[in-house]
């Protein structure tokens, strides 16, 4: 019994319960410092603080209730102003999927070229180094101006932030294939094309997949911000919209969903990585 209590998941549940208790205690204490701050937020958001109850940080029960309502109406699609949360998530995931796929289609072949020809890598390296640290949102106005379409712009933002980790890890993986495997190809006379497809590519799969995992994480991270700026749908738009309506409970529900989906994407890519990578 004591052993079972020492399991890490027992501690996780205890931390969760403790967190909910503190949250409940803080949000049900009347006229705490938090309510005063909420009035401030309400003014900042350009809304009249219509009574402290509406704008206060909601209690865990209120959030749970709101979560239930949102999920009950998740698939609503009767008018553009009443889109269910599931549709917003679908929009976001579709944009991430498109931008990520485009990035993958560019990063892997280009990474291969950079990895196989060090001179190309050296020539492109300065551009990669300069572009990579640019915050994806810095591209937003330029993208909106160029594409004149918010959906294409968000997809472009996802592309531009997802492409670098995959490009660099593919190039590194391709360039650092073990010398013994390269020697196998040379000693037995494996021709160039077969060498690339059957030796270099499988050898770099683990690196490519770890780059994909980093990229999908960043893409999911960025989509929320991108949709806040330039979209009329998606989970980022939803959060921003709920903030404008001071629906704090909805925002919290959305944050939890964003986290859960991000985790799911990461686990899926990790599984794929384990399936496709070679074992030694």
């Amino acid at each position, binding site marked *: 019994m004591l052993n079972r209590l020492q399991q890490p998941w027992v501690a996780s549940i205890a931390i969760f319960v403790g967190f909910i208790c503190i949250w409940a205690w803080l949000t049900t204490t009347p006229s705490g410092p938090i309510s005063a701050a909420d009035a401030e937020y309400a003014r900042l958001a350009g809304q009249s603080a219509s009574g402290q109850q509406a704008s206060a940080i909601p209690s865990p029960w209120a959030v749970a209730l709101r979560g239930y309502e949102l999920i009950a109406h998740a698939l609503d699609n009767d008018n553009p102003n009443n889109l269910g949360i599931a549709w917003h998530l679908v929009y976001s995931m579709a944009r991430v999927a498109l931008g990520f796929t485009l990035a993958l289609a560019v990063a892997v072949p280009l990474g291969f070229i950079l990895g196989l020809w060090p001179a190309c890598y050296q020539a492109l390296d300065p551009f990669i180094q300069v572009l990579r640290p640019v915050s994806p949102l810095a591209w937003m106005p330029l993208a909106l101006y160029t594409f004149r379409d918010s959906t294409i712009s968000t997809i472009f933002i996802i592309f531009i932030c997802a492409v670098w980790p995959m490009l660099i890890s593919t190039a590194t993986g391709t360039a650092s294939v073990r010398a013994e*495997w390269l*020697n*196998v190809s*040379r*000693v*037995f006379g494996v021709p160039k094309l077969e060498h690339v497809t059957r030796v270099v590519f499988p*050898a770099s*799969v683990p690196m490519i997949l770890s780059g994909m995992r980093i990229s999908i994480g960043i893409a999911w991270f960025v989509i929320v911000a991108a949709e806040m700026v330039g979209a009329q749908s998606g989970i980022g738009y939803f959060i921003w919209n709920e903030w404008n309506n001071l629906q704090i409970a909805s925002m919290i529900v959305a944050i939890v969903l964003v986290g859960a989906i991000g985790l799911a994407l990461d686990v899926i890519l990790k599984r794929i990585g384990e399936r496709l990578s*070679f*074992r030694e």
Partner: protein
Amino acid sequence: MADLDINDVSMSFVDRSGKQLIALDRISLAIEHSEFVCLIGHSGCGKSTLLNIVAGLLMPTSGTIRCASAVVTGPGPERAMVFQSHALLPWMTCVENVHLAVKQAFRGAPRSELMDRAEQALKLVHLEHAIGKYPFEISGGMKQRVGIARAFAVQPKVLLLDEPFGALDALTRSSLQDELVRIVETTKTTVVMVTHDIDEAIFLSDRIVALSNGPAARIGRIWKVETPRPRDRLKLTTDFEGIKYRKEILEFLYKKEPFPQFAS
């Protein structure tokens, strides 16, 4: 005509600080058809470098290698190699690993024939049960068997082995040595093998070539091992002849060419 002619081969490397390091200094050695030659010498003296030059993986700074009277300019199908770290591709099954090599050596042959050759090669080293297995599913000794099967499968004139059994335990090593002797005797392959195991060298070799200490290693001494085959591993360790070779090689390695830090 020698099968393999190493003619006045020197090799120098330029290290990172730009200093030149002479690894091999004018090495000449002619190896006859179906002769088994072991290279021994202290670690770092240049044995792998010499073997890689013969394989065509490295080009010598000066001198030439001839294999069956053709000058070596790179790797070729008449020279196959067994690597120390087995060097199997982990994403291919054992038979696919062998097939990859066979396919290049018998280019144009029908797929069924190539597959057949690959399977035959694995049977030759008693691995018929591991044909469809991945390298991670089999033991270290079995992986090295696959490495040997891959090398023999391309039917090379010259087989090169770089400390192939160095990472194996003593029992596995002896059984692989027996296997190697058996196959070499039936295929009449010429063999150059690097080893640091003196007993292994005596058991396998027709000639043992000892390199002097690097840098600028040269051939220090050559022993012709005349013990008739088939050789008895046990008798070699007790018979006068075996003991004599062992003593001479040890003397060479520890007295005449002591490892730098042992020299006093």
